[in-house]
């Protein structure tokens, strides 16, 4: 068989590096094997990031065959951060003011992509974590029918985003939906929830919480099940109350899993697009990703779109760093 022939004859070109490799430590060998993967990662992850940054420093060209104009430095970033873009929704448009509350909004709060995205990310992750934790604690218990409860909790997670978006779109559709009348009866929504930024923000938020709480519950459940049950027995014998057991055993031990779950959810929430597109639309609830799509596809302002994308990456990486610091602290005592 071909592979049975000695390599020395056919692979003389590779003989030297291969001989060198045989003499290296396990660590060097591991890096050599990992090199192609790193190279691939560099091509698919870092190159687009650098290219996006380079594009974002160029001018938009609306009337040339080439979508980019001359080098303008940070001009696109300045426009975005001062609310001077020609879009109906701004990245951010806030100026400092003298009196309380010390800031002035150049555009309504929910028409500023950064604020919409941050508000969405924080609110959705908080609710999903709290509700998900509750669900995880419930399905961690032994009780009759637990299997069915687990299925019920997981079902929303299994529904495709666009289908789920359509469900909420139809609930609030003026001709066939029942949601608008119901919410008006409660006295909270206006006539056309799907064309009001405030109402739509809550619709998208609730839709997201409904769907992804299951994800949080699953990850937290995995954390809960890795806790040694013996610890609870010891605590019980020592007279610890349920709250004390939760505070001193469950919470610290589940914290690393919880933080990882929250990190994933925050990343996802910061990138929200599909759910908005399928319900209220980017005009009504402009997220950061929405702004990239609008700039790219509607305005053909590629450079501005690149700048928004790069700023989005910066905001997301700030969150990642914060989580990693928290994670290091929380696992510091355990690991």
């Amino acid at each position, binding site marked *: 068989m071909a592979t049975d022939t000695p390599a020395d004859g056919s692979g003389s070109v590779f003989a030297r590096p291969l001989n060198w490799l045989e003499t290296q430590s396990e660590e060097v060998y591991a890096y050599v094997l990992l090199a192609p993967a790193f190279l691939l990662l560099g091509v698919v992850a870092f190159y687009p990031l650098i290219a996006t940054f380079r594009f974002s420093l160029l001018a938009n060209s609306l009337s040339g065959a080439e979508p980019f104009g001359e080098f303008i430095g940070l001009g696109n970033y300045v426009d975005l951060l001062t609310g001077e873009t*020609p*879009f109906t929704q701004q990245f951010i448009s806030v100026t400092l003011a003298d009196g309380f509350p010390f800031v002035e909004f150049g555009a309504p709060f929910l028409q500023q992509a950064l604020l919409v995205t941050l508000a969405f990310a924080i609110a959705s992750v908080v609710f999903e974590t709290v509700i998900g934790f509750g669900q995880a604690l419930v399905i961690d218990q032994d009780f009759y029918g637990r299997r069915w409860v687990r299925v019920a909790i997981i079902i929303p997670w299994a529904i495709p985003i666009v289908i789920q978006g359509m469900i909420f779109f139809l609930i609030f559709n003026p*001709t066939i939906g029942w949601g608008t009348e119901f919410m008006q009866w409660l006295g909270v929504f206006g006539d*056309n929830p799907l*064309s009001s930024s405030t109402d739509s923000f809550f619709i998208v938020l609730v839709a997201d919480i409904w769907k992804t709480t299951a994800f949080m519950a699953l990850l937290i459940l995995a954390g809960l099940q890795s806790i040694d049950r013996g610890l609870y027995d010891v605590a019980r014998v020592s007279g610890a109350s349920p709250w004390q057991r939760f505070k001193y055993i469950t919470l610290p031990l589940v914290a690393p899993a919880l933080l990882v779950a929250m990190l994933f959810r925050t990343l996802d929430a910061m990138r929200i697009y599909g759910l908005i597109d399928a319900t209220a639309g980017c005009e009504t609830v402009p997220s950061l990703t929405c702004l990239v799509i609008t700039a790219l596809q*509607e305005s053909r302002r590629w450079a501005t779109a690149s700048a928004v994308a790069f700023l989005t990456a910066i905001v997301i990486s700030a969150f990642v760093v914060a989580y990693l610091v928290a994670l290091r602290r929380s696992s510091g005592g355990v690991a």
Partner: protein
Amino acid sequence: MVNADIDPDDGHAGVSRRRFLEVTGATGAAVGLAGCGGSGGDGGDGPIQITMDGEWEGISDSVIESLYEAGLDESIEVEILPGDFESGARRSEFTSALDAGRASPDIFMMDSGWTIPFIARDQLVNLSEELSSDTLDYVDGNYLESAVSTASDPETGDLYGLPLFPDYPVMHYRKDLVEEAGYDPEGDNWATEPLSWREFAEVAADVWEQNGGPDGDEIDYGYTTQADNYVGLACCTFSETITSFGGAYFGDHENLFGPIGDRPITVTDEPVLNTIRMMRSFMEGPDAEYAHPDFPQISNSDLRSFTEEPSREPFTSGNAIFHRNWPYAIPLNLDSEEFDAEDYDVMPLPYGVESGEGMYEGTGGPAAALGGWHLSINPNTQRLDEAVQVLEAFANEDVMVNNFSEGGYLPPNPSVTESVDPEEVGALGDFLDTLAVSGQNTVPRPVTVAWPDQGSQVASQVSDAYAGEKSPEQAMSDLESSLESLEEDLAE
């Protein structure tokens, strides 16, 4: 199999590093080379490809057959590809094909709403230099002028797209309900003699009242149209209504295609404000804030979330009396299970002021926004001559009649619509007279490189005003400043 040596040190069956790298390296290289093997076609042979949409692909045999009958050389093979049905998605697809310099497809079907930016960017073949003078004369002398203008370079007037079919809206209505309420559409020639907006609103309010009205639960809407915050509001429904009241975005209609930065912004004029007030009355009633006291309520605020299909559904399901939409809705409405075909009819859109009495040239009268599609040639095509011959064949009256009867696509030459045998064109045959009147009163979309941004500003401000979040004056003055700043940015 790979040599499995027993490592004397730990006793595990292992593979030497050398052997492992040789095998994985060879496999990787083979897979990599295989990937390079499948090179893309260069568009040098095979049929001439036209990217249209799924509907056209469905009738492609008959379309291509009619091209050969119109004299296209039968050695030229033609293939119709289904592009995305949604206009914006197709624009993105074409933008990336042209930005990347791809040779395929050879011919694009482009929306009249976004052809001009491609022309401005020099990304299409100049047909004035390529088509025969006979064809150019025929297009010049016979095609719908407003359609040709959205396919031409606004500066030089050169033609870059051959209009394939125009699209203009009509008022769809329930003839049975209108007649039961005591009106006589046939006697009063509604099919060809447009009503004024006031007459229309009074009729709609009366017929609706007799069928339950705003408070009843028999019929939900007297009138449905599209007033959502989307591209269609700016290009079409709002544009045509302000035009019918004698107003405009940029003064005289010759300014619709530029020059950017050197044309007036006229959105704060009274006709524009009156359009908003009228729509407020239609949705909220004449007593609502910012509403026009002379117009009755004939619908409700659901209009603010309606695009084409959501506004058509209530009509087709028997829940609306009047409905503004494009001709595509005619066959769908004729198939309605809620009313019979004879209970349904169409009429031209109403007018605000008489034709010619508007504030600007081209305004006033029953204006209908012009949609529609053009065929344009990819400058990177390897077979320009053959692509040009295909376009020449499309500029043929028999081909137009075939497209009309097979797919319901209106001929770009309005005289063909007027002279066609109604028997020949199926469902649309009964409505030719109305379509001819609408075709004579079209208002093109104000398409320039600034329009994508300006259009979203228009839609956003008009939406705010429709919702009553701003007064019409405030919204239009905000709009004026953002349109002006866009004009200044892009003025060259």
